């Protein structure tokens, strides 16, 4: 509640969080009790003979069991990919490759609802997000890159692009299907074959994608999907017969990968962590900026590498922005991800929730002031209320380290040069946000912020045509758009 000296006015949002349950039906989702590895166009039992559970983080119930690929399984998958590359895919005309990729896009659209429900069950994100963002954007990503397959001669002036060969791709748990699309689509369009490993807590939509790939009649081995955890990923990275690695995940693991492939000639793109600055100037459209703040850090429970986790508000509008932000927090619904009204779903895993709690404790210990809404949260499952920290200093750990949860650190600033310096004062450089009504100021900021994606008067916008990727320790390489082709070709 507002603690400002004179102003005791408040708005009551008690009924804003209490809508009757509106659960999405689970019947659309066909989840098998067990999944094997998708290698060479078939589901094959793992040589390791091991399986592990995947659970619903909102209820802690088991959803299915998936195979745990060992080094021999990885080898089998890479062999299949290499074989498919040499015999079929490398020499297939671009326009025929395109038709396969278009098929995948159309089939995802046809089965959209099933994908959305499974994505929510497996990962904890609200069904509204899976349905309205993750699944359509994934389908559109395939649709976009399908169109490039027979047009590569135009993409690189004075160069004839050659495919690389076999790509090993490791994706995270925050946008499982979408990350699979971001990896597979450009790889296939440029004539490469793929071995993809989804994250161990969210394997199901990738396996469903494997079903679609089978249905689309994609030549066996062109896409292989193998499940497993860190060891499986390491086996992929270290396999001698892969030409390229694409990894999205933490900066720590990204560094391990880079060291591991040193001297091997393997190409890599890494899309790593972030600690983005979201900057509100006094001439910003404030109500829309507050919406941008909320989208920036609470969207997907803050499990976004480009989350606007450091808020900088120009001091002259700080009180107003904070008041609007707190009011907005009161209308955010934390709850069952399958409920269509849920804004903030489950935290992806027990480990991640523990990590978030750890940082919240650190923030309090550092002297920052914590604020959480009055939202009720479910007693079962892994949940965290949207959290603000004010009275934060640039030197606080919560202002420097990636928390990857719905926790926002708020600082004030006075002048443009001050905030540019502070925004860039970080080893990360994935994204940033700028809110001002003044065009020339936007371009001053966008030219000077050292980040791969700068959002002006908006936040967390994604499009298949728009390149995404970081500066500095947020990784290198771009995904999306024309620039997203570069990582998969030899020029």
């Amino acid at each position: 509640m507002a603690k400002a000296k004179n102003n005791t006015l408040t708005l009551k949002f008690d009924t804003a969080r209490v809508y009757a349950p509106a659960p999405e039906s689970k019947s659309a989702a066909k989840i098998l009790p067990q999944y094997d590895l998708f290698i060479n166009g078939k589901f094959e039992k793992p040589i390791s003979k091991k399986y592990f559970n995947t659970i619903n983080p909102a209820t802690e119930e088991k959803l299915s069991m998936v195979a745990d690929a060992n080094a021999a399984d990885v080898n089998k998958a890479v062999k299949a990919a290499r074989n498919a590359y040499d015999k079929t895919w490398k020499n297939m005309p671009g326009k025929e490759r395109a038709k396969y990729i278009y098929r995948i896009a159309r089939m995802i659209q046809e089965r959209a609802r099933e994908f959305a429900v499974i994505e929510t069950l497996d990962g904890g994100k609200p069904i509204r997000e899976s349905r309205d963002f993750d699944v359509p954007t994934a389908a559109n990503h395939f649709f976009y890159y399908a169109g490039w397959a027979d047009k590569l001669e135009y993409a690189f002036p004075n160069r004839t692009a050659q495919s690389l060969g076999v790509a090993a791709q490791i994706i995270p748990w925050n946008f499982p299907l979408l990350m699979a699309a971001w990896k597979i689509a450009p790889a296939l369009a440029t004539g490469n074959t793929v071995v993809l490993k989804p994250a161990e807590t969210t394997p199901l939509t990738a396996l469903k994608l494997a079903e679609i790939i089978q249905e689309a009649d994609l030549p066996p081995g062109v896409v292989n999907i193998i499940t497993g955890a860190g060891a499986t990923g390491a086996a992929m990275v270290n396999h001698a017969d892969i030409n390229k690695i694409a990894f999205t995940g933490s900066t720590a693991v990204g560094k391990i990968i880079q060291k591991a492939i040193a001297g091997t000639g393997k190409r890599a793109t890494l899309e790593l962590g972030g600690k983005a600055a979201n900057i509100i100037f006094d001439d910003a459209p404030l109500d829309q900026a507050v919406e941008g703040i909320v989208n920036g850090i609470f969207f997907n429970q803050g499990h976004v590498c480009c989350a606007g986790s450091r808020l900088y508000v120009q001091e002259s509008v700080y009180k107003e922005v904070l008041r609007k932000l707190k009011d907005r927090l009161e209308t955010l619904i934390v709850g069952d991800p399958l409920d269509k009204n849920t804004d903030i779903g489950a935290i992806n895993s027990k480990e991640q929730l523990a990590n978030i709690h750890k940082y919240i404790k650190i923030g309090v210990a550092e002297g920052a002031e914590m604020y959480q809404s009055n939202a009720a949260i479910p007693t079962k499952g892994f949940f965290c209320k949207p959290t603000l920290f004010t009275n934060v200093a640039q030197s606080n750990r919560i202002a420097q380290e990636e928390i990857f949860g719905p926790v926002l650190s708020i600082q004030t600033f006075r002048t443009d040069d001050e905030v540019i310096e502070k925004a860039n004062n970080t080893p990360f450089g994935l994204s940033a946000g700028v809110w001002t009504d003044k065009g020339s100021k936007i371009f001053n900021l966008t030219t000077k912020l050292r980040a791969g994606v700068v959002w002006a008067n908006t936040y967390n916008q994604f499009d298949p045509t728009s390149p995404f990727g970081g500066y500095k320790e947020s990784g290198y390489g771009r995904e999306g758009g024309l620039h997203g082709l570069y990582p998969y070709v030899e020029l």
Partner: protein
Amino acid sequence: MARLPILKTYKIYVGGKFPRTESGRFYAAKNVKGELLANVCLSSRKDFRDAVVAARTAFGDWSTKAAFNRGQILYRIAEMLEGRKAQFVEELMMQSATKPAAEKEVDICIDRLIYYAGWCDKFQQIFSAVNPVASPHFNFSVPEPTGVVAAIAPQNTSLLGLVSLIAPVIAGGNTVIVLGSFDKPLCAITFAEVLNSSDVPGGVVNILTGKPAELTPYFADHMDVNAILYCEADAEAQQMITEKAAMNMKRMKFYPTMNWLSESAQSPYLIMDTQEIKTTWHPIENIGGAKAGY
């Protein structure tokens, strides 16, 4: 007794509907043996006038659709054409094509539509530029659709020339009025039916049948048409078009030597033939940080 089939009436396609020509005129389209194929509309300049109105009305919506949306619609046209392949092969054969040639022609049309569907949200990335001007301005150039395009389809093919000509035009966000082949008019109208079932908004493509010699002058001098496309190797006609187009500075593109069967007949440069380039400037203030610009 054998069942009597229903003969098809070939009307024109304007504004998403199938009216008859307002002139009431027809001509008898015949095959090489001189046998009657169908009575086809002999369109008048008034039909063209109405089609221009429809195209102009449709332009605002079509040109402002998200590019990927246009791509999805072009892909849908390909899907519908694939589904109707047998009908088109039959019509081409009625107009004296051999079966293999007819099948090849339809296949190329389908693949060409998919080709352009893929360009809808990519050609901008190739043909735009951020220009590194010397002054502190953000300066960018982007293509924009020119508007309403009048096109006379290549006369020696029933389907391939028409599809190849208009696909890049609409992929780029323009709307179009196209006059089909005089001697082989059937596929133009059947293709209109494909468009009509493909989520293509009415007025984006308008298809007329009739005499090129009669209608081309009107295509060339209409003051609310932004560009004209002409494919025959007829120097006199080209000269006439150029003189008339000067009245409103219509953009003219001639494709007399294009081999529509080959891969060289499809390219993003054909999209750019009906695009303008717009350059925008905006100041970049310079406060703090290392000095930089675009």
